[in-house]
């Protein structure tokens, strides 16, 4: 143990920087690959790729926070869709943008409250709870929209602002980065975030250390719900429409990215920057594959594989850590 500290530094650094290095290598690869070299590194592609990731980044943050306490939230994508649809229809009915944003966030909070109540007070398993609420939300969305996309009535000022560029990058991406920094701050700098880590590590011990587990888990679901709901606005801003089907598809990529974070930046722990890098990694991979002319189903392979590899790494790295004893 004692002599190992200097030696064990290198594998740690390798684990920490592996995914970021892969990301850079992959960008380089698609930039020189004949099929993609013209289009991949173009301003347009960078704009499209990053713009498409901004909502996913916020949704992944919403999935990451519960994951820190070993809670799974499978309703984040559906909640984002819920926020998008209700905000869009409010705007279509003439509500100001700020009211629409408030509607998306409040709906997210309501979902978070339901999830949090069922998990903490009723004691229902988080996977079951959130799969259930995700399905319920899909029903509510279908009811509200009659399964039709909302394409008109969305103010151009909103879509122009979010998909408009600042230094060649869509503003939505900056918003996502600001949210990411905020989540990093909450998780890493505040007592609240440290209690979450303790709850994830040993719930009973955390309770006896005064972590007030029930109250904190409720707050976790509320914040997760609010973030997911707010991500709905980014969905509208990026595409200019609100489709009733769009939300749920974000859940698995978001959770996959959060799981993959254990393999980057802070090996063995779910972390904010690792999640961001995992999303960029998957985004670049999908974009590169698309430009290379592969069939769309290849992207499914990439996302599904990433989820399995991420979960596998999470348990593998976790196991290594506990075997250091």
């Amino acid at each position, binding site marked *: *143990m*004692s*002599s*190992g*500290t200097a*030696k064990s530094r290198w594998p740690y650094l390798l684990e920490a920087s592996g995914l970021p290095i892969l990301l850079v290598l992959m960008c380089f690869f698609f930039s020189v690959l004949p099929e993609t070299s013209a289009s991949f590194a173009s301003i347009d592609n960078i704009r499209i790729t990053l713009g498409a990731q901004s909502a996913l980044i916020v949704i992944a943050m919403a999935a990451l926070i519960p994951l820190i306490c070993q809670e799974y939230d499978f309703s984040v994508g559906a909640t984002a869709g819920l926020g998008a649809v209700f905000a869009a229809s409010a705007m279509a009915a003439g509500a100001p943008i700020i009211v629409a944003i408030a509607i998306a966030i409040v709906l997210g909070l309501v979902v978070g409250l339901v999830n949090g109540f069922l998990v903490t007070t009723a004691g229902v398993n988080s996977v079951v709870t959130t799969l259930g609420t995700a399905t319920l939300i899909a029903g509510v969305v279908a009811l509200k929209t009659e399964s039709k996309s909302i394409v008109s009535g969305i103010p151009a000022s909103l879509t122009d602002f979010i998909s408009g560029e600042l230094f060649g990058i869509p503003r939505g991406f900056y918003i996502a980065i600001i949210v990411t920094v905020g989540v990093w701050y909450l998780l*890493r*700098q*505040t*007592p609240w975030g*440290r*209690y979450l*880590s*303790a709850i994830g*590590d*040993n719930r*009973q*011990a*955390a*309770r*006896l*250390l*005064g*972590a*007030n587990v029930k109250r904190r888990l409720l707050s976790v679901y509320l914040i997760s719900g609010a973030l997911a709901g707010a991500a709905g606005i980014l969905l509208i801003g990026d595409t200019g429409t609100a489709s009733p089907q769009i939300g749920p598809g974000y859940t698995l990529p978001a959770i996959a990215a959060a799981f993959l974070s254990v393999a980057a930046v802070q090996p*063995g*722990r779910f972390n904010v920057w690792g999640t961001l890098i995992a999303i960029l990694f998957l985004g670049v991979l999908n974009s590169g594959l698309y430009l290379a002319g592969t069939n769309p189903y290849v992207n499914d392979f990439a996302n599904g594989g990433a989820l399995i590899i991420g979960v596998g790494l999470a348990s593998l790295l*976790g196991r290594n*850590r*506990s075997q*250091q*004893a």
Partner: protein
Amino acid sequence: MDEAGTGTVLWMTDVVKSFGGNRALCGVSLGINRGEIHALIGGNGSGKSTLLKILAGVLPADSGSLKVQDRAWNLRDFTPEAARESGLRFVHQQPTVFPSLSILDNLCINGQYSIGLMGNIRWGSTRRRVLDTMERFGIDASPNQLVGQLSPAMRTMVEIARALQGQEPGSQSVLALDEPTAALPSREVEMLLGMLQRFASQDSQAILFVTHRLEEIVQVADRVTVLRDGMDVATLNREGLSKAVLAEAIVGRPLEAFFPEPVAQHPASRPVLELDCVNGGGVRDLSIAVEAGEVLGIAGHMGSGRSTVLKLIYGATTVESGRVCLDGRELALHDPEDAIQAGIGYVPEDRLGHAVLPTMSIADNLAMVSPRDYWKGGRHQRKQEFADAAAAIKTYGIKADSPSVPMNSLSGGNQQKVVMARWLRRGPRVLLLDEPTQAVDVGARADLWRLIQDAAAHGTAVVIASSDLEELAHLCERVIVLKEGTLGIELNGASGLSEDDISHALHDLEAA
């Protein structure tokens, strides 16, 4: 020690194992005879677990040989399958029985069901075989009973029976038990030890027994091998075995210099902690008062409410009625958070389950009592936290390279010191300790005792619930004995209490 004796069934020679640059074992030799209970003892980090893992074939040795059942093995390439074929059977510290399955299923789960022509289980003959096994191993229950409903000692017996059921009595097999008594209350320990002894003498079973509890060794061991710093420093015979001799062999220095003397009684002061007719969690009408600098002991059998009293004071179990007062003011205890804010600290009985944050660092484990202390200017003051943790590592004698080391890389004794330091460095008004030295070695035990006495000397009111009478006798001037949640007997010893005093009180109360 060159030739294996005639009765020797297992012989390990010159086992060497290093981790990185650290030598965990530097040439350990160990022989086990037929029909003998051979104890293996040593402090934390002395190499006990490493040796056991090598014997089980789960960890390859750097060098060393093993002779078992007339076959020689190089321990560099000994495997779990080879260990099994060689008749080595292991019962690990963590139970591996299935609590929600019946005894019968637990005993047959490795493929011991008798199978009919259609691939069906032939319940009749399976049941008869299981009944035979249960009789042989002294398991007095119905085969259909769920293992989770058995007492802990019986559960361990089921585990032993499962490990040994295929072996003929008197075969050359060796049963290795890794701290089987660590989680058992004292009465259950007696039962288990009795069964092991019967086993060794009647069935000539060779048993290798790893434990921290010296009194058990004195009671049952035929021979003892003592490990210290990766070497077998002594092999002691039954004659002349005593706790003092063992403790001295483990730590390698005379005992007198080792166990601190009880500190002098503080002058009587006003009570810090008062319980007034407290009810809750099975405890009934309990009234006690503890003064600053006093160490109050709570004795009682399992289920007497020993642990519950501490949980009530800590807010971890709901107080149904009655008052808990600190410095004369009633506390509203809804949650441990309230107790922590009032200056009450609690070290739970189940260290791994309820106290340790395993993958978090020592610094985190210390700070998580009150993370707000390190939240200044909207930032987490990591540097300050690390500096304080490094100081605590020094002050409380924790063996660790740095505050950033994860908790699960520490030995049990050092983990317990961290758990204790968590509270001690805050200078708590009240410190509640549940089995504070359970499953730690004598060295760490003496250190922990010293920490408790220091805390009392600095004015903390300490309450210790323990099944370890030596511990209570050593630390407490006053011991209350509980029975079925009520205060049975209060023992007051101005000149100190002895183990016998407490033991008699327990017996008297049981008889009453």
